[in-house]
């Protein structure tokens, strides 16, 4: 695992597209060796931030360092330090997997002996070694994404950027892509910076920045973010609901909410709370369950809406604009 220095440093970063502020004075740091996630709805500014960090876009203002290099003044050094997997495929489909990787190796000036060894190693990791002589055109969406991950790692980058790495893939393939990502972290001295709008994927990150309308609204580990919601959610059903509520209020100093006969309340650590509670609770219990809050609950709490329900007009407009600037 890499040392814990700040591998990515972003200070007051902004990007405007005309009137639209896609990224609004964003500041954060990514530690070496961690999986850092950007979570937010489409059009929140995730891809724009990645594009700035990988030197494809110039920021309107602010500063960003990747591996200690400035993304504006030291583009070449930044480019050598990073690997990228974009939302949309960036492979030459008319070439074979091997030819695509060779191109990448030449472009990054990787010596021949290292190239051969590394190519085999990575293609075996993503289980494409047997298909290396096939044209990419014949690959499925998941295979292409795997090949791109292998390609992004060919030149031993310090940071691997994954922009929505599993977008448009079926659940099974998504899981496999994640297996590779987690395996990579074990094997390589690698920091992974990814964006996603899937809550369940964000759970895999060490730390998450929740981004909305170009601003970071929260940044912490998934567990801590969920703790901020107010701990775990316990729901119970009692024979006598009134008595149960009274007891919860008096003996436990909790603020239960009742809905359809279900009594729900927050406790910091549900699993450890439950055994003692069941033993000592006087009212007769019919059922009880405990649930960790999801990142969805976190997002709703922070922004007042769920991640998927969003007004389309402005965001689509923004997305189209950003495509125009790619």
């Amino acid at each position, binding site marked *: 695992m890499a040392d814990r220095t700040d591998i990515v440093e972003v200070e007051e970063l902004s990007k405007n597209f005309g009137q639209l502020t896609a990224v609004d004075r964003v500041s954060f740091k990514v530690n070496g060796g961690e999986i850092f996630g950007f979570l937010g709805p489409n059009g929140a500014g995730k891809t724009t931030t990645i594009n700035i960090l*990988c*030197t*494809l*876009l*110039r920021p309107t203002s602010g500063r960003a360092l990747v591996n200690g290099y400035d993304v504006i003044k030291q583009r*070449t050094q930044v*480019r*050598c330090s*990073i690997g*990228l997997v*974009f939302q*949309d*495929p*960036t*492979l*030459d*489909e*008319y*070439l074979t997997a091997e*030819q695509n990787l060779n*191109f*990448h190796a*030449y*472009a*990054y*000036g990787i010596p021949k002996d290292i190239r051969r060894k590394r190519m085999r190693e990575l293609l075996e990791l993503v289980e494409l070694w047997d298909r290396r002589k096939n044209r990419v055109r014949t690959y499925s969406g998941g295979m292409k994404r795997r090949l791109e991950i292998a*390609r992004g790692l060919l030149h031993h980058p310090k940071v691997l950027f994954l922009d929505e790495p599993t977008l448009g893939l079926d659940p099974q393939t998504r899981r496999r892509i994640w297996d590779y990502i987690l395996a990579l972290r074990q094997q390589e001295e690698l920091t992974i910076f990814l964006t996603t709008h899937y809550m369940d994927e964000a759970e895999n990150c060490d730390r998450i920045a929740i981004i909305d309308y170009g601003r970071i609204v929260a940044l912490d580990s998934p567990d801590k973010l969920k703790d901020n919601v107010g701990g775990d959610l316990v729901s119970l059903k009692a024979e006598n609901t009134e008595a149960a509520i009274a007891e919860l209020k008096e003996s436990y100093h909790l603020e239960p909410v009742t809905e359809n006969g279900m009594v729900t309340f927050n406790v910091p650590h549900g699993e450890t709370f439950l055994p003692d509670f069941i033993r000592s609770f006087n009212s007769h219990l019919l059922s009880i369950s405990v649930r960790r809050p999801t990142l969805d609950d976190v997002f709703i709490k922070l922004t007042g809406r769920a991640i998927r329900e969003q007004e389309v007009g402005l965001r689509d407009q923004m997305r189209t604009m950003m495509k125009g*600037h*790619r």
Partner: protein
Amino acid sequence: MTAVFRGVWVIAYRELLRFVQERSRIVSSFAMPLLFLVIFGAGFNRIIGAVTPGVDFIQFMYPGIIAMTVLMNSVMSGLSVVWDREFGFLKEVLVAPLSRGGIVLGKAAGAATVAVAQGFILLILSPIVGVSLNPLLVIKLVPMLIILSLSLSGLGILVASRMRSQQGFQLIVQLIIFPLIFLSGIFFPVNNVPVWLEVLSKVNPLTYGVDAIRQLFLAGEAAATTGDFVFGVTVFGHTMSIAEDILIVAVFGVIVMLLAIWSFSRQE
């Protein structure tokens, strides 16, 4: 500097790799020039007869057809830029540690290699057309075609540097290619035409490329019968030599190439 050289070579390498795999392109890039040569040649040869003493129409047109093949292949190099943008591969190129100038030059170098090779394949026709080849001529032809194709590739990439769809690019290229071809003296000598046509032809850089190749091929043929040298575009009363022709093409090439690099670097 390494970022420039690596850029040139890796991009050119891929262009060639792609070309070899696209067999249809190899055929199609010959189709139009050949069509012109065969149909115009057959149709006009008897009516027009000798354009100048000792040189009949098909012989006159033949060097121009070589230039035209080079033109078509070179300008179409821009298509691969648009193609890459459309299919995302351009991003892979742009985030690599390669200089923007190297990328543009690499595209041009790859296209030029293909264009020169295609131009050379047309030399097979020379016995049928009735133009005699000798090793010296062929050797001299190489740098001429290289300069011509690099310049025209620059033009193609310049057009492509901001285009987002292949259809759009094809459309613009048609609008550029056809005037270039018809106003280049491939089909008629430009010294003896109405003034408007003469002016348009003489600001067309391709005219000088065609003229250089034609002088190279036909100087011998014409001189053999008349003893007098009859080709060479005249500009303000001055008859261009091969070297001057090439210089004009090269200057044009440097300008469009710099513009292409500038335009390509500015985009994000």
